[in-house]
């Protein structure tokens, strides 16, 4: 079971992506837990996650999140803007697994 956390300003637009990622994961037969939170909740939620993906519009938070991610020991990255715009669940899911080294 892999746990993927997404963060954006209010957790609204990333939650659009979450449902697409879940669809893609189901089609591939991956066992995953994917959820989206607002940026202020991200640091506390990171403990429950294996990877953090940040909405591109919040990429200026990466440095702050990186510190916490480092402590918790999980990888993080900013979601590709094109994939974000297309709400491309598969591309983002692949990216998450790539970050987790699978």
């Amino acid at each position, binding site marked *: 079971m892999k746990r993927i956390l997404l963060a954006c300003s209010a957790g*609204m637009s990333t939650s*659009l992506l979450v449902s697409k990622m879940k669809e893609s994961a189901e089609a591939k037969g991956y066992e995953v837990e994917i959820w989206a939170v607002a940026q202020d909740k991200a640091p506390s939620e990171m403990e429950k996650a294996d990877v953090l993906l940040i909405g591109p519009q919040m990429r200026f938070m990466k440095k702050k999140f990186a510190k916490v991610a480092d402590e918790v020991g999980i990888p993080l990255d900013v979601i590709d803007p094109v994939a974000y*715009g297309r*709400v491309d669940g598969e591309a983002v899911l692949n990216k998450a697994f790539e970050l987790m080294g699978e």
Partner: protein
Amino acid sequence: MNKFMEFLENILLPIADKLNNNRYLSALRDGFMVALPLIIFGSIFVVIANFPFLDRLIGEEAFATYQDALGPASAATLSIMGMFVIVGIGYSLTKHYELEAIYGGVVALAAFLILTPQVLEGVSGVIPTASLGAQGMFLGIFTAFISAELYRFFVQKNWTIKMPAGVPDAVAKSFSALIPITLTLTAFLLVRIIFSYTPFDTVQNFIYTVIQQPLTALGSGLPATIIAVLLIQVFWFFGLHGQIIINSVFDPIWYTLNDENLQAFQAGLELPNVVTKQFIDTFLVGMGGSGMTLAVIILIFMIGRSRQLKELGKLGAPAGVFNVNEPIIFGLPIIMNPLVIIPWLLAPVVITIITYVAMSTGLVPKPAGIIVPWTTPPLLSGFLATGNAWQGAVLQAFNLLVVTLIWWPFLKILDKNYYENEKKGEGN
């Protein structure tokens, strides 16, 4: 062009980073976040208490009783929102320093109350509620910053009372906070006493006159609002969340102006401010998201021929109705797209001016100080924000039409480009 864009992004990204990760601004944002559920609770009851035509339906007297019964809901939340913001700031800042956050919250509140007038029209033993809302907002924010800093300073000095082993943890904790809190609050008491010998009489009066009034006067003007709106658009053009970045600076001003209107609205007086939190949230952002992209979605359905835009329209419409527009911003795309920079920057400025003029001339009622959640669909949000006035919804509809017209030629060119590329792709 690309070089120039890169150059601009290299300037904007660090600014966004600084503004968003600055510990005071981030505590301020957290403070408003803490108050938000209470503010919305209060707003709901202001809306219910002011249903249109109800006074004619049930009679003046019954309507007054009805309003009195619902009054405490907003009086205890929305009208004294400063108090909750302060607790949130103190909590957040203390938490940032990894200390007992709850003490940071209550010490901020107590410090603020020490500086607040405790007499109203000769009656002592009261705290004027106005001081806990709009009037005390800036004092509260500064007090929360300073008290949390002082508290941290005294805790880190380690002038705490050490309890012997065996004393329950909670007891030890309450004593460990004792000295830092006593010293912090004593400092604020001294400040209050000193100010009572000045012409300002209270610290609140001092901050209100010297800082809050000039700043809110500036912030309520058209030029400052246009600058704020343009900055939001520019940040978004580079794919950075402009609203969040600019809000962290403007929220104290916009919420204060908002609360002034609420007090006037509830007292049945003329509303003082056009520019408020709702001016921005309902009439600019609340039209499909920052940049009023609901117009873009409408245009896609009207004139879109390319597959790419049609797909985007379907994807973006359901979220767009609730003012979430990242699919449009990143999918059209709006970011770094020179083709759309003109309507992207122009439309919000035009709408700011139209809305400002419509409200200052009295054509449309000013925002009543009710906080409508930003995810409320347009038309409904305009109606609610202006204190249940149909003119608010009509203004939104009119603005939407204007934005659609501004975008029309640009979206047509963009669509044509995509369409021709798709045709070429199919030909191969």
